[in-house]
């Protein structure tokens, strides 16, 4: 009812001679989301050396942008012929996601966009055994335990959809760019929790989140209707007037434009 009232109100404005400002409005529910990364436990089946559990929270600040933060606990153990290495720690990411889908289509349920996050990793690393061989012979050494803080940036294109009211699922690809592993140039971690191999300047991968979603506020979003230039365009689009979203129930006011 509110939507119709709004459309009616805009129609009145247009009739008053404001055709150049033709706009439509939809009611958009802003959500708070909290989810966990399913890919961590799944990847443990493939890579038994790695334990990685992540949770993520986000809050829409408008129809396109959401603030997001995540926490991840990771533990990595590698027992190779040439070294034994362990690292574990907590990583924190914070940033924003941008949704490319327009508000009248996404309705707060769908997202296809990109996120940019800054990550901090608080971790401990140790190489309890290093085996070396050269012309002098073979021997063993060790890297004592040490605590470090690493920094990285994360770019996350991804998609998300609501499968049930209040439950969303979504895939993120991620590209992480290392700023600093925090352990000096010689003792970069074999695995930095939250990032990956500390010797690599860039890491790629994916995360799969299942989230609970709660609407906390509704906002009005103004959608500029498409301008119809000719009847041919109208025919190509199946005779439906431009700017008429299935959810919005708006009109493009062709007679006025």
């Amino acid at each position: 009812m509110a939507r119709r009232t709004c459309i009616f109100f805009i129609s009145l404005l247009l009739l008053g001679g404001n055709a150049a400002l033709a706009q439509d409005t939809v009611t958009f529910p802003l959500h708070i989301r909290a989810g966990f990364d399913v890919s961590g436990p799944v990847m443990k089946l493939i890579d038994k050396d790695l334990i990685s559990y992540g949770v993520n929270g986000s809050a829409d600040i408008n129809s396109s942008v959401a603030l997001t933060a995540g926490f991840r606990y990771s533990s990595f153990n590698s027992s190779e012929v040439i070294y034994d290495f362990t690292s574990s720690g907590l990583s924190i990411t914070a940033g924003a996601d941008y949704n490319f889908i327009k508000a009248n289509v996404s309705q707060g349920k769908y997202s296809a966009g990109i996120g940019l996050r800054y990550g901090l990793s608080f971790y401990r690393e140790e190489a309890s055994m290093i085996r070396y061989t050269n012309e002098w012979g073979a021997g063993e050494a060790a890297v004592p335990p040490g605590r470090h803080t690493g920094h990285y940036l994360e770019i996350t294109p991804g998609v998300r959809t609501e499968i049930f009211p209040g439950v969303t699922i979504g895939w993120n690809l991620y590209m992480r760019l290392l700023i600093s592993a925090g352990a000096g140039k010689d003792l970069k971690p074999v695995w930095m929790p939250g990032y990956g191999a500390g010797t690599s300047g860039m890491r790629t991968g994916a995360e799969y989140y299942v989230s609970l979603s709660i609407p906390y506020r509704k906002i009005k979003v103004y959608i500029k209707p498409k301008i119809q230039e000719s009847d041919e365009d109208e025919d190509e689009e199946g005779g439906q007037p431009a700017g008429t979203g299935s959810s919005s129930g708006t009109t493009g006011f062709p007679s006025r434009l």
Partner: protein
Amino acid sequence: MTRFHTIAPVTAAIALIISISSCSVQPCYEDTDPLMITEMLVSGTGETAKADSLRVYTYRTTDTLKFVSQKGVSRFSVPLDPGSDESLFLITLNGVTDTAIIRYERHPHLVSPECGYTLISEITGLYTTHNIIDTLIIENPSVDLDGQKNLHLFY
């Protein structure tokens, strides 16, 4: 919305491929053995000297390790003993033998997850006899994988 539901599984498949490929095991192709590089120079002029013959070796309780045996060379590289804080080398230059002792501190260095760790060294001091060697000086104390010259040997 149909388009969105088509994009989601495709993205999921790409994500899975990237995830699996990013944790595949890679072989080691990198150099993991730091070498101490010494350049030989003519005493007085500082010009590069080409030795007619050069042998670098060390005696151990059970055997002799031969590192270099070459003719017509102006520089040589030898590994430091990663199991000790000093290495002793016998340098036979144009048939005359000198002894050089190199002292250093060792530090672990991660080459890569595939290649593992190596021990790099920081030269802290050296000692040499002077049968043919005039001076042995430290040019760059870091014996690592960068391939930089470490010592200048004047004779």
